[in-house]
């Protein structure tokens, strides 16, 4: 039997009609005519009759043709926002056709939205090869003077955003990553408003890579977070992404974009350095961490981002390990507190770390630091330490204000 085929069957002595969904070898799932699925042990199901496959996907969405003057390309890469549920089996599959956007997304009549399927990958599996591919595709779109929105899984959206931020030395417009925390097959999905905001943000004069997601739990305001300063801070809420230590660069509410003064402006060309060196890792310190574990990871890396405690500390045995390895490996210090800056001048541990060769990274986020080191190792290996400590894309703040 094929999925979608109409059948008559018997279950525990009663006869029913339904549509065959699947049989996983143990359990048969059939959709009843009232819409419910029934899942039963194979031994309890007896197929009485199979009908010709009468299932034809009827797609009677009104095809609203909009040819707004502003061209926007959506690069789909996978993730919740770029997927939809197969309504029969419950399986998640990539969206091949995002024309639904014209039906469900408001305030985009002035745009002409096109779709490019770049990848179909869960974001936890994204690595630097994908970043490079996304960057090239984004550059091609920007070079056409069109807007670019990337549909991306939220799990590692911050890593991809950082990677694109560093790879682009100059940008003629914003590169926007957006995603959703509720899948787009749900009426309550945050996808529609995030997409609406993203498409509208392509018109802004921002020349940065941003993450565009809900500002709070309501379907009201959507934030444009600087890619290198955004972090997923909640497993499931719509407003999971937060700008850490800075305000969002812009917000979108009901058709209006409001840009913060600190956003960098569009420039006159796109310059892309599309190389990445994978020999960087993040090590999260915890009290009692064995020296051997640290050495095992660090010894064969070009650079290690340490997530230390507090202002950027680790235990004495780890300092000793660093001392031994720092001739061949760069060690950078960030804090697992995530908020605030590291400072290795305050406590003796910090000063020992400096002596051991650790380079403090201010308030740079650990993930951003990792991606930055990957970028610099591949493109500016001779100037690595100086550039790591410099603010290249807004990843390093010298001021942290009290109000947030």
């Amino acid at each position, binding site marked *: 039997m094929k999925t979608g085929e109409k059948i008559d069957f018997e279950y525990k002595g009663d006869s029913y009609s339904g549509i065959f969904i699947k049989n996983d070898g143990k359990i048969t799932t059939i959709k009843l005519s009232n819409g419910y699925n029934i899942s039963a042990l194979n031994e309890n199901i007896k197929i009485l009759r199979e009908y010709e496959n009468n299932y034809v996907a009827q797609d009677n969405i009104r095809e609203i043709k909009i040819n707004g003057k502003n061209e926007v390309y959506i690069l789909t890469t996978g993730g919740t926002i770029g997927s939809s549920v197969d309504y*029969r089996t419950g399986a998640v599959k990539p969206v091949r056709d995002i024309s639904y956007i014209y039906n*469900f997304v408001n305030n985009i009549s002035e745009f002409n939205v096109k779709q490019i399927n770049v990848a179909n990958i869960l974001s936890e599996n994204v690595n630097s090869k994908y970043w490079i591919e996304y960057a090239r595709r984004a550059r091609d779109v920007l070079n056409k003077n069109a807007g670019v929105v990337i549909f991306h899984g939220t799990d590692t959206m911050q890593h991809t955003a950082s990677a694109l931020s560093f790879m682009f030395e100059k940008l003629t417009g914003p590169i926007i990553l957006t995603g959703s925390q509720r899948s787009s097959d749900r*009426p*309550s999905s945050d996808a529609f408003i995030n997409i609406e905001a993203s498409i509208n943000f392509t018109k802004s004069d921002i020349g940065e890579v941003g993450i565009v997601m809900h500002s709070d739990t309501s379907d009201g305001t959507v934030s444009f977070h600087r890619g290198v300063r955004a972090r997923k801070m909640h497993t*499931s809420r719509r407003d999971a992404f937060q700008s850490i230590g800075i305000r969002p660069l812009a917000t979108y509410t009901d058709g209006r974009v409001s840009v913060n003064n600190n956003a960098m402006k569009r420039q006159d060309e796109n310059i892309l350095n599309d190389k990445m060196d994978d020999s960087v890792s993040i090590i999260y310190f915890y009290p009692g961490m064995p020296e051997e574990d640290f050495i095992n990871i660090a010894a064969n890396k070009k650079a290690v981002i340490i997530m230390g405690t507090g202002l950027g500390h680790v235990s004495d045995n780890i300092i000793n390990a660093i001392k031994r390895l720092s001739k061949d490996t760069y060690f950078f210090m960030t804090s697992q507190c995530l908020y605030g800056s590291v400072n290795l001048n305050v406590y003796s541990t910090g000063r020992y770390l400096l002596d051991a060769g650790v380079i403090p990274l201010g308030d740079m986020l650990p993930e951003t630091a990792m991606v930055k080191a990957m970028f610099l190792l591949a493109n500016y290996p001779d100037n690595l330490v100086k550039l790591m400590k410099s603010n290249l894309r807004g990843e390093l703040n010298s001021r942290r204000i009290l109000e947030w």
Partner: protein
Amino acid sequence: MKIGLEIHFQLKGVKLFCSCSTEGEKSNYLFKRKMTPTMSEMGHIDRAARYENIRNRDFNYYTSTNSCLVDADEEPPHMPDDSNINTAIIVSMALHCKIVDYVSFMRKIVIDGSNTSGFQRTGIVGLNGYVETSQGRVRISTVTLEEDASRKISESGKNAFYSLDRLGIPLIEISTEPDIKDENHAIETARKIGFIVMSTGKFRGEVDSIRQDVNFSMGYGRVEIKGVSKLSLIKDTIKYEIQRQKSLADISGIIKARGGTEITDFMDITHILKDTDSKIIKAGLNKNKKVFCAKINNARGLLKNGNYRLGRELADVAKNMGIGGMMHSDELPGYGLTDNDVNNINNFMGIENNDAIIMVITDPEIITAFKSELDERLKNLMSMNLAETRAATEDGETRFLRPLSGGERMYPETDIGLIEIPLKRLNSLEGLVPESMEDALNNLKNNYGFSQTEAMGIINNNLYGDFKDYIKVLNEPKIISRIILQKLPEYEKKYNKKLSGDELMEIFTMANENKWGRDSVEKALELYVSGKYPLKILANAEELKPLDAGRLREIIIELMRTQEITEKNLIYLLKNKTKSSFDARDAIKIFENIKNNS
């Protein structure tokens, strides 16, 4: 005539897909959401769903002390608690259903905002059962376990306000086949089903804890009447619907005879009424609304004329779209419009013969959508295609809500895996399956000596389960019955305090241990409800110490000294005289003894 019922029962305890209590209060934290009609599993956008979307509404939710991120649709659902699934299984068994091997929760698209997720999660637990009635078996299609919706607080313009306190409360939905013969049979069936659910002891039992939908058909399509709030209203509602459909058949016939009807495009007639004295129109114009008018040919005298109420059928469409009200020619002059106003309108619209008009005061943007909905509805009514979803009102009428929702509104809830119901579990639950109402009645009458009326009192007040618990600790059916049916409600009202079943159970246990008589049990209950003694020391209360024969004798003698005592007034006077309890039979014996010896 075919009647089917869908009855929903709330369960108490913990919500279906999170760990919040089913009991709680609205908080003041508010958030706002939009709903987007997404494609359903067959690739359609559901028709009902699209209809709601036209309204483009803002849904505002108040959190509650019993809501969490799951209720706010900010966290995936948790696996349901075993207890709720067990209750659904027990009910299914009592209704002779086949139990599913796996409960598979589905998402049923609901975009009126009542579910923050945009769908209601629901899963079949039992199917193909029946309930015995006086007119034969009524088949049960399904017993499902589903989550209740948010509670609507208010609505204003495009904003609807909900509270999350009710969202996620487990509901058992029991759907019958259309085997019910008439309105009385519907009530009997509902009662029998209700008895079973209540007998599980898990029924929530608050206001609104039962809601019934009635499926009704008399040949013009299936009408789904949502939310009949009381059992007694089922009858009125069915009667109303029969009458409505008959009348529509008449109207349809008349119009066909007149040559059919159509609605013209709406014309802006604001200029004609700019100087009117009509308050309702002036108020609308002050809000920058416009007055629109359309002509309906051949409908004059059918919009509102005795049983002919076509106007109301059309006004429901306006109401659902947030357009305050609709006026029509059968009501004019009226609404403060003068003859002159009406003439001007008629002239402008070119009204002749049987032409009727309808008028609305609204924002211009909405008028095209309104017209399109109106056309569709009028077409359905004229072709007597009456299948639709209707809402029950509090006075037993019904009103148009939306087109019928399709079966394709459902797709699997992927966040929750299949929940296996192995045979072992079924076997372990069998002992908990409640009796049928007949069996319960017989039990009360035959084993505890109650009359039919007394037995029905216990059953109708949903006290049969409690009764069976109490009788285990205090083998005094009459005492228990009097307390749970009369005394407890009386004291609870008097002292404004609710007793839990556990508290009552303790008092009955005490009564058994102390061998209290009826009076003492009732006295103990009142002492406790009034707050005078905690349970710990209740049994030692002064008031409950029975008077010994000597003291009783003294009091009776004292009474007899001051007034005329008879066997009839003795007990009454004694009770007034002393707070302590005594054995009435002893007292009478003593009294007679004194009288005989004096």
